[in-house]
């Protein structure tokens, strides 16, 4: 177990990077604390896997340092970093049986035979493959292979951390759920630092205590699932987390706060104060569909809007509302009913209306 500190880390796959667009990871500082269960969430190609490979040592960062418990490990190979990693596609040693596969990392570490046996048995039980232990690994199905591959990552007890690179991609949804729970249990049981890379927010929030959202080579927010949902630090987090994502509208300054087209949005005094100190014109407001209030009667600061579309998702509905030239999505109860084309009244609760300047959230100073 170790605390993993990435210090002014940056990485480029090109030999002579000429600008920020050449970097897979842009300058970042980040600490993965000892014994935490973390998810690294982001779209494909944002640098998640690169970061994981830098932690494990498969990739050498072009700039910055990787520290394990404060000790620089840049020059150490993966074997010396003593780290386990599970890859996106199952890697199994196909000339060996399942048992031999699981025992392989232990054998390489010169663990005594009796201990190997007990440990392999344990892990096989957790992954529910104990009946396949003596099968040749190459005759397994794709998800069994991935379980074996995962088992090899979990079988060592003394690792600094276990890294998962989208390990459940090839596994069917039913089993995915189960395995994710298993991983969580293993984490609680052994208290190992785990970093789980995924592009699936549900996967991230069920597995991790804290999620790092990565976008364009940077970690734009590191927080609990609730924080990511309620206080998205960056417009990308707002857009990426949640289904559907946050409503984001380009706005300009006005007296009461901001406006888009002829629609004025009243902001909190501290937001306006903050805004007045900045000169940027890249302003956005964001509000989650879940926090938009809709009523049939007008209220203070409510807007009359047209219902453009309605999607019934079983337990709730998503409605599209036309406000000025913008379309807002709102999440309403299953029993809410309004005809398309009818007019309703919408309120943007100030505590849930986020103001973004240059894509980053303006936060209240406490």
């Amino acid at each position, binding site marked *: 177990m170790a605390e993993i500190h990435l210090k002014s880390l940056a990485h480029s796959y090109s030999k002579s990077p000429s600008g920020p667009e050449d970097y897979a990871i842009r300058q970042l500082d980040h600490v993965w604390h000892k014994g935490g269960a973390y998810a690294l969430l982001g779209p494909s190609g944002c640098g998640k896997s690169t970061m994981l490979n830098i932690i*494990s040592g498969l990739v050498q960062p072009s700039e910055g340092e990787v520290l394990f418990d404060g000790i620089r490990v840049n020059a150490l190979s993966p074997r010396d970093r003593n780290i386990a*990693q599970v890859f996106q596609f199952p890697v199994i040693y196909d000339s060996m049986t399942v048992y031999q596969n699981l025992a392989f990392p232990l054998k390489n570490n010169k663990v005594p035979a009796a201990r190997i046996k007990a440990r392999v048995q344990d892990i096989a039980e957790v992954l529910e493959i104990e009946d396949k232990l003596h099968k040749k690994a190459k005759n397994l199905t794709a998800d069994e292979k991935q379980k074996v591959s995962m088992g090899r*990552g979990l079988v060592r007890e003394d690792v600094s951390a276990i890294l998962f690179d989208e390990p459940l991609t090839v596994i069917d949804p039913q089993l995915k759920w189960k395995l994710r729970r298993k991983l969580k249990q293993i984490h609680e049981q052994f208290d190992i630092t785990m970093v789980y890379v995924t592009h699936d927010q549900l996967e991230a929030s069920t597995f991790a205590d804290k999620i790092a959202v990565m976008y364009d080579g940077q970690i734009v927010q590191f927080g609990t699932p609730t924080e990511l949902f309620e206080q998205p630090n960056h417009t990308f987090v707002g857009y990426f987390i949640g289904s559907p994502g946050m409503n984001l509208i380009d706005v300009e300054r006005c007296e009461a706060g901001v406006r888009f087209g002829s629609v004025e949005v009243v902001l909190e005094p501290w937001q306006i104060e903050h805004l007045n100190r900045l000169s940027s014109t890249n302003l956005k407001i964001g509000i989650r569909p879940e926090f938009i209030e809709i009523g049939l009667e007008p209220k203070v600061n409510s807007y009359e809007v047209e219902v453009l579309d309605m999607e019934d998702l079983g337990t709730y509905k998503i409605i599209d509302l036309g406000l000025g030239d913008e379309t807002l999505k709102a999440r309403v109860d299953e029993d809410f009913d309004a005809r398309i084309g009818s007019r309703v009244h919408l309120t943007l609760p100030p505590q849930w209306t986020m103001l973004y300047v240059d894509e980053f959230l303006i936060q209240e100073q406490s």
Partner: protein
Amino acid sequence: MDKIPNNRAWWLVLPVFLLVAFSALIPLMTVVNYSVQDIFGPGQAYFVGTEWFKEVLTDERLQDSLLRQFLFSGAVLLIQIPLGIGVALMMPKSGIKGSLCLILVAIPLLIPWNVVGTIWQIFARGDIGLFGWGINQLGVDYNYTGSTVDAWLTVLLMDVWHWTPLVALLCYSGLRAIPEAFYQAAEIDRASKWAVFRYIQLPRLKSVLIIAVLLRFMDSFMIYTEPFVLTGGGPGSSTTFLSQTLTTMAIGQFDLGRAAAFSLIYFLIVLLISWLFFTAITHADKEQ
């Protein structure tokens, strides 16, 4: 889609049939034809049944050269397969160095057999050949035209030089086909170099090694030109291998019946052993 039965489609097989007939069947049947007759001259052929086969199988000269042949092929496989794997493992993975190595390694393969024989005949000479002279300078009494052991070593060395590159190239291509992820996983699992070789590289080289073993066995079992040029089969008959014995019999002594019977047996041995190799290896694969 419904299939329309039309027997005229069989005509489409004709070109292949003709090709195989002229390239394999007809020549083979000619040999079979010779093997059961005693031919004294044009129009003077007598059917002798299996007599030639019996004679060939009990011929001591042939038994000797068969034994030599097995020894030679065995030695060739034992040396060239591990050496080829070793060379392939040591070659750079990519880049200009990799290409350069490939070219260097492949050069012996491009040299015609009889030239290889001639090169070594001169190279290994004690008086003007660099190799032979060098060894003699070291104080070792080396003379491949006089000593049986030296002749054998020279023939083996020549074959290793000529054909190990084939094994190396095959293995190299097999190694390059292993996805990087396996090496990464092995690195993460802290596998030693030996474990990587034993559990990742070797199992994945299996299919190319089957080809390499078969090719090297068949080729070495039928070796003719190089030892013929290098030692002429000597000293005595110590490096006279099967094909040379056969050629002497067929062309030198014009003993067509005996030579034909012998060729058939020779052919069957190669076929049988290749088949044994192949089934043994593929069967081991199917277990479990």
